[in-house]
């Protein structure tokens, strides 16, 4: 199997983290929905707002790590 980087446990950690980051894009957007419900019913929005902000931070971090590891070349 060429081109597949795995740890000594046989787990493609970099690939897994890439996939989680990709999925978090969707789940980050998903927080907008309960946030909208919170606004409509006058409930505190901060848990979802905070998570959305953390999500953006995570994505930026993941992107930086991806580029730093050379994953940004040609992709």
């Amino acid at each position: 199997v060429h081109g597949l980087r795995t740890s000594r446990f046989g787990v493609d950690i970099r690939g897994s983290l890439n996939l989680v980051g990709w999925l978090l894009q969707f789940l980050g957007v998903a927080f907008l929905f309960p946030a909208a419900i919170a606004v409509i019913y006058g409930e505190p929005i901060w848990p979802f707002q905070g998570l959305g902000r953390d999500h953006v931070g995570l994505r930026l971090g993941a992107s930086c790590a991806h580029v730093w590891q050379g994953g940004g070349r040609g992709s």
Partner: protein
Amino acid sequence: VVSLVWLLIAVFGSLPYLLAEPQLSRPVDALFESMSGFSTTSSSVVTDVEGLSRSIAMWRQFTVWVGGLGIIVLALGGLPRLRVGGRQAMAKQEMPGPEFALEATIREVARRFVVLYIAITAAEILALATLGLTGVDAHMNLYRAVAHSFTTLGTGGFSTEARSIEPFAAAT
């Protein structure tokens, strides 16, 4: 890859419970509720369902909907783009040549599945909300229609009511 994705998504989904719901303030309870939602198992450690805030209750229902949609379907859509895991290797070894056609097919199937899932959800919300608006079921409102559509489409069992579907009219 799949195990790590499941674990991290469940952890991520448990954060609203940890931050905003006193009934789920213990990390293990929040993680259980989150994993239960995403796996559409819908077992719950919440003792007072009707005491949940509406936003948290909707997030709970929403995790079932996302779980029903399938983290795996999302992953299938993302795997070819990210070149993650052994699928490419498998495609090369088992079927040398048509890798790009296979990627396009998987992505297209995932896209169609998502569109269909959203359309059926919208249809169910409309049907349930209509029952409420026309007075057939006085207990049904738009919020409950959305919440129950999410949970039933995902084949889960979370409800906004302590007695689940029982308080609703027979037509529902």
